[in-house]
Structure formats: C-alpha cells, structure tokens
C-alpha cells in the first residue's frame, strides 16, 4: 500500500494569479484527493450595500475583480434596471456590448499567457500579454481606465465613443485578428503544447452538468450553455453561436477560449458597424423595490447578481455568485489522477478568479 502524503498547494504559488489553497493528498506523485479552501481575500463587499446607495454601488461592483470588472458593473446595472423597469437606449446597449467583448478579449489573452507560463512556455506568455496591451490601449482610449472602466451606470453608460474612434477600431481589428490567429495557431497546433495538455483533467459531459460547471469549463465538455444567447444588451441583434468542444480535457478548454477570441473580434466588428445613433442614458427616478436575479456571461462563465430592494435608497441584499465558485466542484473531481507537476496546469485551466469568488 503506497504511502499517502499531504502537500499544501497555494495560497502563495508562482503560477497562481490569486490565492487559493488546495490540500493535495498524494500517493507517490499522483494526486488521489483534493480539499480546497478559500477565504484569503474576503473583503465582505456584499455588506457595503448598507453604506453605499444603489447608484453608487456600481463603483463597488466594478472593483470586485480586476479582470472581469466591466461585466460585474453590467450585471448589477441590468438587475437594477429590471427591478425599476428602466429601458436603456439602443446606443448604450451596443456600447456596453463592445466594452464587454473587449473585456472578454483581454481576459482570454491574459489567461492564455498565464496558462503558457504554467506550462513553462514563457516566450508565449510574453507574446500573449503583448497582444493584450493593444486591447488595454483601446480600453483606455475609449473609457479612461485600463483595468477599471467606470463607464457603466444604472440607466445607461457615462461616455460615448466618437465616430472617428469607431472607424479607427474597425480598421485596427483586421491586423489584430491576424496576430491573434498566429498566437492561436501555436496553442492549437504546436506538438509540445498538445502533448502536455491532451488527456489531462478530463471531465465528462454528465459530470460537468451535474456538478454545476459553467463557462468554458462546461462548454469544453459538450454542455452548450452560454448566457449570451438570452439576448441581454445587444446580443439579441448580433450573430453568434456558442463554441462547444467535446473532449473535456485541458486541451479542449484551451481550444474553446482561443476560438472565443476569434468570435469576440467578430462580434466587436459587427457591433461597431451596426452602432445606432441615440442618447446614452436615461434619467433614474425613484428607488428599487423588488428582487431579481441578473445573469451575464463573463469570460469565466455565468455570474449571478441577486438584488433585492425595499423602496429605500439602500438595497437590502446583494448576493453575487461568481463562476469560479461554481467551478470549484469540477476542479475537485478533475484533479485525482494527475501528476503533481501537472496540478498547476489543471488548476489554471478552469481560469480561477478568486477575488471574484470571495468578494
């Protein structure tokens, strides 16, 4: 009977972008069991609704996470708008869609870089982040902030993108797409990458559905859920299909994200060319009274903001369930069977965003 040892992984680890702790039970270098533990950056943001009015809470919602920040603000604003019955003008919806897809692009490029770093391919890591810089420059030119955009508000958006900037973005998309395709080609077709990733961390379709996996983790196993299909913001008018793979291993998750980069570029191109004219926001009168579950597709999966108001300026409950929290059970099922040296790659393949998980 081989001896079992317990190795603690994290919270400080060179490949982890954020602190999560896993206790790995090993038998001679193979993992047989995993116990996760979180709580290292719990900030108690859900209780800040008692101090910040509902219009000011957007700023708090943006700062839950640095990578998916725009979509938290979007989900929160959509929830409040639904409770209060506010209809956002079309131009604001298209602008929100463009910024959401830029967020998704920059998040996936960041993830590709971290993933390459986790595998040991540092040159590819640097190249992915170099491409990400062009997306961040675009975000800064249009919103004023590279990481925290500060443009979504209850009732619309705060800032406009002028027509010359839109034309410039449209022209810059083609060379950018070519560079992204070169990068994606390395991830999809390089033999060393394939050898490292195929067959690792497999999770079947039924398991993924039963455990509640969301986002690319679920889509890589064949479960076709993508909340952009419900048509919030301007997605109802744009043309796209969710990207689904069937293998369920780390390589499939990588393929899903690379293909989503191409799909995002296409969505931005469509939104920029079809942008309608009109006002940017609607005046917000009154206070929210009621409850709603607002759902949005973040780069990592489905995020839910449950908001409840009782007619005063302060909400009574804001519950935020982020996709990484739902992806932890699949992680616990994926890890047994992997070698110790492959654990960072498997953990990174679900794209952990722990600051979201612990708000």
């Amino acid at each position, binding site marked *: 009977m081989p001896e079992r040892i317990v190795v603690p992984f994290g919270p400080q680890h060179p490949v982890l972008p954020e602190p999560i702790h896993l206790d790995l039970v090993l038998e001679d270098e193979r993992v047989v069991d995993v116990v996760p533990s979180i709580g290292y950056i719990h900030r108690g943001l859900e209780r800040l609704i008692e101090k*910040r009015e509902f219009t*000011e809470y957007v*700023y*708090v919602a943006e*700062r839950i996470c640095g990578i998916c920040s725009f979509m938290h603000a979007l989900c929160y604003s959509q929830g409040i708008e639904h409770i209060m019955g506010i209809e956002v003008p079309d131009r604001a919806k298209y602008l929100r869609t463009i910024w959401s897809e830029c967020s998704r692009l920059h998040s996936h490029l960041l993830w590709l870089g971290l993933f390459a770093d986790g595998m040991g391919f540092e*040159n*590819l890591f640097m*190249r992915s982040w*170099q491409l990400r*810089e062009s997306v961040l*420059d675009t975000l*800064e*030119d*249009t*919103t*004023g*902030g590279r990481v925290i955009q*500060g443009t979504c508000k209850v009732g619309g958006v*705060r*800032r406009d993108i002028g027509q010359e900037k839109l034309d410039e973005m449209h022209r810059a998309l083609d060379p950018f797409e070519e560079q992204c395709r*070169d*990068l994606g*080609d*390395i991830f999809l*077709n*390089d*033999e*060393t990458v394939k050898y490292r990733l195929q067959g690792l961390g497999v999770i079947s379709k039924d398991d993924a559905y039963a455990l509640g996996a969301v986002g690319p983790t679920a889509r890589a196993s064949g479960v076709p859920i993508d909340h952009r299909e419900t048509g919030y913001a301007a997605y109802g008018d744009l043309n796209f299909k969710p990207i689904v793979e069937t293998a369920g291993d780390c390589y499939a998750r990588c393929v899903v994200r690379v293909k989503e980069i191409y799909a995002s570029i296409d969505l931005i191109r469509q939104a920029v060319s079809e942008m309608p004219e009109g006002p940017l926001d609607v005046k917000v009168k009154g206070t929210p009274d009621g409850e709603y579950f607002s759902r949005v597709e973040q780069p990592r999966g489905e995020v839910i903001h449950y908001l409840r108001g009782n007619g005063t300026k302060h909400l009574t409950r804001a519950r935020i369930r982020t996709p990484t929290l739902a992806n932890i059970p699949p992680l616990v099922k994926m890890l047994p069977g992997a070698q110790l040296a492959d654990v960072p790659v498997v953990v990174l393949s679900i794209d952990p965003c722990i600051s979201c998980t612990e708000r």
Partner: protein
Amino acid sequence: MGIFRMTKTVLRNLAGGPATRQYPAVPARRCPLTRGHVAIDPATCRSCGLCSRRCPCEAIRLDKEEKVWEIDRMRCIACGDCVEGCPFGSLTMEQDYFSPVTEHVVERYTITYVKPEKPAKKPAEEGAKEEGVGESA
C-alpha cells in the same frame, strides 16, 4: 514541423526591439480621457456642495463658512462623478496619476471665488452708479 511554430514570432520579436517602456524614466502612455487625479480651480467654485454629495467614497469635504475645499487623495478613486456633476466647471480630471506618498494626504484649497456685485436695476440712468466692480479678495 509541429514543434517549431514559435520561430516566426521569435525572429520577429528579436528584430523588433523591446516592446516595453522604461517607466518611470520614460513617461507613461496617456490619452486625453485618462482618469488620473481631480484638480480644482478655486476661483470658480461657488461652494454648492454637489461634488461632495455625489462622491461615492466621501473623499471631498466642503466647509462653506471657512471657504475650504478638501479632498482626501487616499480615498479618491478617480471615477469622475464630481467632475461631471459640477455645474460651474471648476473641477477637471487630470491625466497624471497621483504619485505614492508615505503619509496620509488631505489636500486643502481655499476658495477664492468672489460673487460679482449686481449692476444697478435702473436701465435709464447712464453710468450713474459705479460701484467698484470686482474688489480683490
């Protein structure tokens, strides 16, 4: 061959030079919309208090009798709500970030706005009432 796909990118990068800037020796990239820090023009502020009410972090404090406008730089998140809300245009968003400091910074500005005297109400009299306009503060 399946394993040398990175070669083209590597050669291009070697020929192209470094992609990073030597910040802080070289100034950082800024654009007109960059939200750096909030600046006030004290000569135009009329102490209405809208900026203080709109600030989501309670970083601005206004004292009307003492004519003092304070901003706590460590609480300010540079969201730009105060700049949008000021009806007289005295607040602007500058593009440079506030540099790191070693102690808590609260900046105070004395408001130097002087309300101009109202001109006389009788339009028939020509130049009869000359109250000195705009004395220095």
